């Protein structure tokens, strides 16, 4: 039994490492500036993987070498201060090696660069909507009191900053390649989470709060948006798309979008006709 167990433990180590190296399953190709995040993931793999292999192999050795045989007697050693403290210090160093780079990248993650374009993501069961600031570069204020079928995102109709905001309800979001963007997130019903695996960054939409994160799209393409916070039975169907494209394509797309003022005017007309 001891031989079998020791062998199995060694096989677990070999199997796990080979699985990691050989299996086709790994992070999706990145499409944002957060390559640092991938690097910290890989660093964590190296450090913790070393610990894992060392501990399991040590166990395998002990299980085999110190297996019970007739007449065998264990050693008696309650403590070994030197050994215990050196292991504790070694672990502390390893933990610091993980934490230092991790916090460094987190600092970048929470520090939005000046000049990042603000956009807004609005979640509701079970669709994604977006708002862009329009010509003035400013998003108008919003409040859920204002939400109605004519004003699905609840923009403040009295705020001049909001009149030229581009309102995109349940349609794709387009972003220009290579420009930092600060994503403001707002939910009008329950908690959602704006999740594009290729961007690495994600953040909850917390009703009652406006949350944010920032990133730079670095690869053109169409990326699927998923919801990563359970939001009811329609949770898996809450999908959207982000199209990252060059500046001219982006400008062309912008021209086709409706401003809040245009939407309100049209809504008024429809109401009058009825």
């Amino acid at each position, binding site marked *: 039994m001891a031989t079998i167990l020791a062998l199995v433990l060694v096989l677990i180590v070999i199997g796990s490492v080979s699985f990691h190296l050989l299996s086709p399953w790994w*992070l999706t190709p990145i499409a944002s500036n957060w390559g640092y995040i991938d690097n910290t993931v890989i660093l964590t793999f190296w450090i913790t993987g070393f610990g894992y292999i060392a501990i399991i192999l040590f166990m395998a050795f002990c299980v085999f070498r*110190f297996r019970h045989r007739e007449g065998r007697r264990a050693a008696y050693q309650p403590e070994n201060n030197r050994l215990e403290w050196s292991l504790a210090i070694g672990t502390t160093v390893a933990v610091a090696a993980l934490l230092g780079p991790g916090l460094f990248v987190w600092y970048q993650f929470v520090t939005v660069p000046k000049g990042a374009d603000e956009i807004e993501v609005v979640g509701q069961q079970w669709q994604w909507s977006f708002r862009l600031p329009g010509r003035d570069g400013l998003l108008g204020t919003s409040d859920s009191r204002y939400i109605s079928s004519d004003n699905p995102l609840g923009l403040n109709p009295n705020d001049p900053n909001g009149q030229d905001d581009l309102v995109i309800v349940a349609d794709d979001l387009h972003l220009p390649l290579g420009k930092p963007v600060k994503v403001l997130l707002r939910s009008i019903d329950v908690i959602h989470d704006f999740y594009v695996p290729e961007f690495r960054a994600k953040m909850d939409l917390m009703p009652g709060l406006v949350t944010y994160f920032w990133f730079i799209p670095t690869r053109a393409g169409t990326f699927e948006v998923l919801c990563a916070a359970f939001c009811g039975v329609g949770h898996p169907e809450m999908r959207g798309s982000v199209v990252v494209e060059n500046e001219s394509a982006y400008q062309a797309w912008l021209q086709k979008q409706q401003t809040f003022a245009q939407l309100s005017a049209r809504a008024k007309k429809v109401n009058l006709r009825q």
Partner: protein
Amino acid sequence: MVDIGTVEVIPPAEVEDVELYHPKSWVTKYVFCQDAKVIAIQYSITAISIGLVALVLSWFIRLQLAFPGTFSFITPSNYYQFITMHGMIMVIYLLTALFLGGFGNYLIPLMVGARDMVFPYVNMLSFWVYFLAVLVLVASFFAPGGPTGAGWTLYPPQAILAGTPGQDWGIILMLASLILFIIGFTMGGLNYVVTVLQGRTRGMTMMRLPLTVWGIFTATILALLAFPALFVASVMMLLDRVLGTSFFMPAIVQAGEHLKYGGGSPILFQHLFWFFGHPEVYIVALPAFGIVSDLISTHARKNIFGYRMMVWALVAIAVLSFIVWGHHMYISGMNPPFGFFFATSTLIIAIPTAIKVYNWVLTLWRGDIHLTVPMLFALGFIVTFVNGGITGLFLGNVIVDVPLSATMFVVAHFHMVMGIAPILVVFGGIYHWYPKITGRMWNERLGQFHFWVTFLGAYLIYFPMHYLGFIGVPRRYYELGETAFVPPSAGTLNVFITAAALIVGAAQMVFFFNLIWSLFKGKRAGGNPWRATTLEWQTPQTPPGHGNWGKELPIVYRWAYDYSVPGAEQDFLPQNQPPAKRMPVAAPS
């Protein structure tokens, strides 16, 4: 070499023996029983029974993930009800109840040398309130609309709004059941703590307690401090749901309708929930740490390495576990600078935890390792716990958590570290103490079979699952559908995982068969089949009788780990064995 193991006689203090309640009828002996050992069995059977429901639910979850849309009885609503109930049952009603109510009740009085818990009547009430909580939980399966499907974290506003299954009755019964559970637990928990502090026999100093008792003791203190946060959160959410208050409910427009809520904070619930929820991980883990220490030491015939460090590591983990809850909320929109604090505190907790792992494996070093079934489970625990622990270093380090949170990586991580690892210890513990509880041995072959299938199967389920998370497969998805970034091979992997899960689940029947069969047909075990040092193995009767000890309480002369002491005749010295008399020097008369 330090003096921790050396024998020192503590003069017997004048401790009066306690007056025990003696049952007079079948009902007071087996139903409304005040004997901690019977209460332990009641707790264990109830917890394992409801745990079997969770096991079956996990099969349904896996069937859906491997073969989406194949089974008509798994609708999206059902699926979310299954995952919610599976999680809630496993964490609270199985693991918490089994470790503290089951192992705690059986082992604390016996291991500290007491006749019973200090408040036997309250102890009895504790079980029956827990039983009621389980009944209310079960009732929600039969309520109109079924049990809640809000996810085991019950996050508002979702939990109490339309679009969540069980929004009518399920959530109300769930919250009521949690409230009952906490009331029941508090009665038991106070008992465990006071018994460890006040009920120890003569000579049983705190630093002579077996680590099992230390683990259960610290876990109980954690639970007594953490559960109140869940209690108030449950009451507040119940008020939001029933009376229309807005503790956790901001202004909400759902499906075009302005709801009458406003001004509350859903993130407040998350803080309350995880202020309970993170210590909860250690409420499950610390008893497992303690038990596994004793299993390894006993079956390696060697004292646990670094006992004092082990005790202080337990205490350090317990204290730190109260300041790490924010790592569950890194992407909740909590003020981002909090990430620095919670990542730091979370990674610091890895240090005492790693020390415990080192000391377990160092206990094996130069041991005399008997690969009994309990020992196999203990060693299996180390593998799964180390694996689950290091993935915790991924998720605890705030920036690494960002891409991995809410994916299958998280599911794999917490199942490995607080599902599989503690459950392996539960099995190890049951195999270890079963001979004491029943007086009989189980079938070794069946036990070994149970170990290999469970250990290897569980590893095959959860190790590859992490990689689904790396791809980015989100958790809590009824079906993934057409998702561009997920390769079709991920579907194959899901089928493989489901096959392993079904096999591992089915193998548990071997365990139950073994327990029941051995109850009647097992070999007589004798009082101390493992030749262990701790007091529960030194009882005059096996199974221990009412009041545990004979006329006299045992007196403790040594720590719990006098294995293979040089010069001793046997390779173990029971805690109540007096020190060898020195040969009297011939005194001149």
